[in-house]
């Protein structure tokens, strides 16, 4: 009788406790695949897993804080930046971090596609043991922010072969790589010689899981401790699971419609404003994205310096949009589609399915535009078609997600996208005042008033039409404490995590 009772108690316990006790390893699950050891392709994973570090770090508010460099300053003329390296830092192969090693890593990184490549760098060199010097062809204020990007991770000299190819991941991070099974998995252990003290949790693993449903099931079953990027449906379900904390933060990533301002139907700013007024951003955000609100300007409040408090918010007013288009000479044809001088207001909307919400949002936008008499055909294809059709001029409009915080200062993205044109930003749109402000800001001139003015110009001219701001989400096991959800997607707090008591 007693044994039967015990057995049934054990069965009940097994049935009611979904999460198993922790197994000594923090298991991190995210959708990002590991393409190899090169920070240019997979640095986002290495930085999150604390395997390698950058000279400059950024906190959750986007403020630059010391990383492998403890201080930095530009020369009087702004053409030379000096970074003082932290003392006592060792690479995972036991060699010390010195200015020579950092110069080598950054020189190689700046030769690969990425933001650093776009900075006006002429030379990166060592000046003694601990001082790294970056020389520029023109002043460039956001340089420290650029050096905080994951593609600027500092690896040991032994990590590169003679041709500069990364052959091993040898960083300075709190965790040391023990196994890399690209593209889906890596294992790491705490690095005993870490300059910041050995982390409390001994082992960590990272696994790329492409399907959002599977990631959610892994969180729910208790065999993952930190699950990144949840789909809207799973998010609602996981909020009810006792063993998990579900976090969500607004990120500086925006859902935008890129507009070819040279297109005959889109060349007047009023026409672009009419398209913007056709969009019910709140409805789309709630129903499709399950976000709390849509975007009423380009960047979210979390990017405090670039979220303007002075611009008039973008509004939903289909009636007003129809009136603007009527004033521009567009009249409804027999099928309801607007025509002018024999031309239909007909556009192809390019998008891509890498982010599952994009084709869905495109279909909703198609309906919204149809209500004001604009005919839209959706072309859901590879993301690379956006820059391709920008280059050959065949793009009408495109729906895409753009990250403004690859580095904490979005000035880098503005420089490449809008001053004056760029693959993911303005197309056939050139506003000399805007470009001037952006270039001045990049040179370290100007402040809040100039940033507000720049956002105001975008808001009026609409070379891109903001639709929504992204939310980043994660499900975190209550087995661990100290995990963070960083809006800049640099850290998950791994080195500060502990097992919960």
């Amino acid at each position, binding site marked *: 009788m007693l044994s039967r009772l015990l057995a049934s108690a054990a069965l009940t316990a097994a049935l009611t406790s979904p999460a198993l006790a922790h197994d000594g390893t923090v298991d991190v699950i995210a959708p990002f695949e590991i393409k190899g050891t090169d920070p240019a392709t997979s640095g986002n994973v290495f930085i999150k897993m604390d395997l390698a570090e950058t000279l400059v770090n950024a906190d959750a508010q986007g403020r630059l804080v010391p990383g492998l460099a403890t201080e930095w300053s530009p020369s009087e003329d702004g053409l030379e930046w000096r970074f003082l390296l932290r003392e006592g830092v060792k690479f995972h192969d036991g060699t010390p971090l010195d200015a020579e090693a950092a110069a080598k890593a950054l020189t190689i990184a700046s030769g690969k596609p990425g933001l650093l490549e776009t900075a006006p760098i002429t030379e990166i060199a060592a000046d003694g043991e601990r001082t790294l010097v970056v020389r520029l062809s023109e002043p460039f204020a956001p340089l420290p922010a650029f050096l905080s990007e994951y593609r600027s991770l500092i690896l040991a000299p032994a990590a590169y072969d003679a041709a500069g190819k990364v052959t091993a991941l040898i960083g300075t991070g709190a965790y040391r790589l023990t196994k890399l099974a690209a*593209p889906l998995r890596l294992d790491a252990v705490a690095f005993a010689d870490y300059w910041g003290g050995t982390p409390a949790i001994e082992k960590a693993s990272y*696994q790329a899981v492409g399907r959002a449903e599977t990631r959610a099931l892994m969180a729910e*079953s208790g065999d993952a401790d930190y699950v990144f990027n949840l789909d809207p449906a799973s998010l609602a379900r996981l909020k009810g699971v006792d063993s998990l904390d579900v976090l969500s933060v607004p990120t500086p990533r925006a859902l935008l419609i890129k507009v070819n301002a040279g297109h005959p139907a889109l060349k007047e700013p009023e026409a672009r404003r009419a398209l913007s007024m056709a969009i019910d951003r709140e409805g789309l955000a709630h129903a499709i994205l399950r976000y709390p609100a849509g975007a009423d300007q380009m960047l979210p409040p979390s990017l405090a310096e670039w979220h303007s408090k002075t611009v008039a918010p973008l509004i939903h007013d289909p009636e007003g949009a129809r009136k603007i288009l009527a004033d521009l000479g567009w009249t409804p044809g027999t099928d309801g589609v607007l025509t002018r001088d024999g031309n239909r207001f007909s556009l192809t909307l390019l998008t891509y399915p890498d982010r599952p919400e994009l084709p869905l949002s495109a279909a909703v936008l198609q309906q919204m535009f149809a209500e004001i008499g604009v005919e839209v055909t959706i072309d859901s294809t590879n993301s690379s078609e956006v820059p391709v059709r920008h280059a050959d001029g065949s793009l009408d409009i495109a729906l895409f997600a753009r990250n403004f915080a690859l580095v904490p200062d979005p000035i880098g993205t503005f420089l490449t996208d809008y001053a004056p044109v760029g693959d993911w930003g303005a197309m056939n749109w050139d506003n000399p005042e805007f470009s001037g402000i952006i270039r001045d800001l990049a040179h370290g001139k100007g402040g809040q008033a100039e940033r507000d003015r720049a956002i105001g110009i975008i808001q009026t001219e609409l070379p891109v039409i903001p639709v929504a701001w992204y939310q980043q989400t994660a499900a975190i096991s209550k087995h661990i404490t100290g995990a963070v959800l960083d809006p800049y997607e640099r850290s998950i707090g791994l080195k500060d995590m502990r097992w919960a008591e």
Partner: protein
Amino acid sequence: MTKALGYRVLQALMVALIVGLLTFLMMEALPGDMAFRIAAHRYGYDAVNAAAAEAVRSELNLDRPAIAAFGRWFVDLLRLDFGTSVISGAPVIEEIRHQLGASLQLAGIALMLSLLIGPPLGLLAGLRAGGWLDRGLLIVSTALRSVPQFLMGLILIVLVSIHLGWLPAAGYGKASHFILPALTLALGLAAASARITRDAMAGVTASPFYAFGRWKGLSEPQMLRRHGLRHIGVALVTFLGLQFAMLVEGVVVIEAIFGWPGIGHALVHAIFGRDVPMVQGTALLLGLGFVALNALVDLAAHWIDPRESRA
């Protein structure tokens, strides 16, 4: 038998040439700019721009004529060099070894599991054709066959991982990660192999030579050992060859659901990223794998039942 094997070697050569040429032509025919697509897969779509695409174009000599690229691939292949992946820069053979290895491990364990479940049940059902076990098995195996594999995978995850907390829901790296995906595949396979075994066994028990065996006084276990197993063996082995091909298809779906690194995953990603050497290498090895499998099935069938070749 030697003749049959010689035929398979010739088939392998033809497969290599045709698969290589077809995959190359198909990749060439895909729309879109190759350099941009490769850059998007290498550096992520936040970083793909005209400059990155140009860097890729000059690094990989994408401007040279397609025929030269194909010729280069084929000459390298003759030296058993599959080239390097244009996305990761790693040798194709290394990438395939890891990913095909993971798929084969999963497929192998699934096949073994299915053999432990399906044929023994089929055997018992066939020995008493029309009995309660036979009728019950028909219902269960029909139900298992009709459930799509992705649904079966999700049912098992929800039941075994979420409600019971016994096994990891998904993932790769530990022995326990094998069980659920292998079981998902095995249940479908076992349902089919149980039916095949049952039909073969029922046919044998109804045959005149089996009746003669009984008449001369052999016991049921003796009958099964001497006259039964060998007969159903040929049917089962031939069917297993076919099942393995079905397994490879199933593995692609299962890999996606269970976050498993496999050849299906590798092939799909290589196609999206325009990783031509990787697509060619993967398709080639899969093609050759099927030829080798057919050769093995021929050999096994010949070993179990050598009568045909003596005739």
